[in-house]
């Protein structure tokens, strides 16, 4: 498998470091993806900003590692931290104890409002795959609206968004892939 470029950044969970870290990511992208358009840069900014913001909210001891790789026509953005393992309220009773011992064979709704829904499928005892749905709305303004958008933004800005729990290191690994 040919790897054309890779880079790793360390993030210390400070809000005022989000923008400088993003600028370092942008410099990498512009160096290795000549002619990267505004649409691609926008998607990357959404993903990086929300991954880092997620770390500020949930990461525990130790810094967050942000890895970038360009590989076979894909940009892979991966965040690794040692914070609390993934959990979320869901409509059904899910025990987020990692590795998962019960594997639902249907998508799990994490949250939804009148506009969009965010779901995961459990792909292994250690892994989740995120996807979102749009809902039709009527002429009236929507009245039931979520206030939680971080994972939704990442999911909708990339082509593939996954979570992996490393049982050995107990690290959380979020991976967002954009097809170039």
């Amino acid at each position, binding site marked *: 498998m040919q790897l054309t470029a890779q880079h790793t950044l360390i993030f210390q969970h400070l*809000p*005022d470091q*989000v*923008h400088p870290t993003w600028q370092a990511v942008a410099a990498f992208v512009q160096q290795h993806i000549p002619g990267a358009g*505004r649409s691609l840069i*926008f998607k990357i*900014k*959404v993903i990086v*900003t*929300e991954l880092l*913001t997620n770390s*500020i*909210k949930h990461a525990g001891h130790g810094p967050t590692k942000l890895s970038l790789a360009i590989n076979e026509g894909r940009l892979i953005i991966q965040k690794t931290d040692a914070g609390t393992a993934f959990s979320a309220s869901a409509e059904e009773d899910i025990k987020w104890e990692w590795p998962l011992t019960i594997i639902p064979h249907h998508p799990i709704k994490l949250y939804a409002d009148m*506009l*969009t829904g965010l779901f995961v499928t459990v792909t292994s005892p250690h892994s989740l795959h995120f996807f979102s749905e*749009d809902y039709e*709305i009527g002429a009236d*303004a*929507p*009245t039931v*609206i*979520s*206030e*939680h*958008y*971080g994972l*939704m*933004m990442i999911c*909708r*800005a990339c082509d593939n968004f996954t979570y992996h729990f490393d049982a050995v290191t107990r690290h959380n690994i979020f991976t967002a892939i954009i097809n170039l």
Partner: protein
Amino acid sequence: MSKLLEITQEQNVPIARILVQEANLSHAGQLKDELIAALDRYGNSVLVDFGGVNYVDSSFLGALVSSLKYAVSKKLDIAVLNPNKDISDLFALIRLDKVFKIYLDKEEALTKYRK
């Protein structure tokens, strides 16, 4: 703590200009507090001017939605004024462009909200 919003009135419509360029989770709670205070003080819908903002994160948008819910409970509104292309695209990405009225023309917004 310095103010996050500079509020002026035009044609009796409060316009809340955001005073930071990168609006993120550090500012989310303050945004909600100051917007709710403006809604209560002026008793009118508020135009939030994003003209000086480069980018917003999910936490900031969540606080904006929370403030909108408060406004709606008072039969008022919060509208978005002068977002740049990235911020407009963010609203569209998570479909908040179906929730907020977004104006690039201040006069058009004032016509809508003046009492």
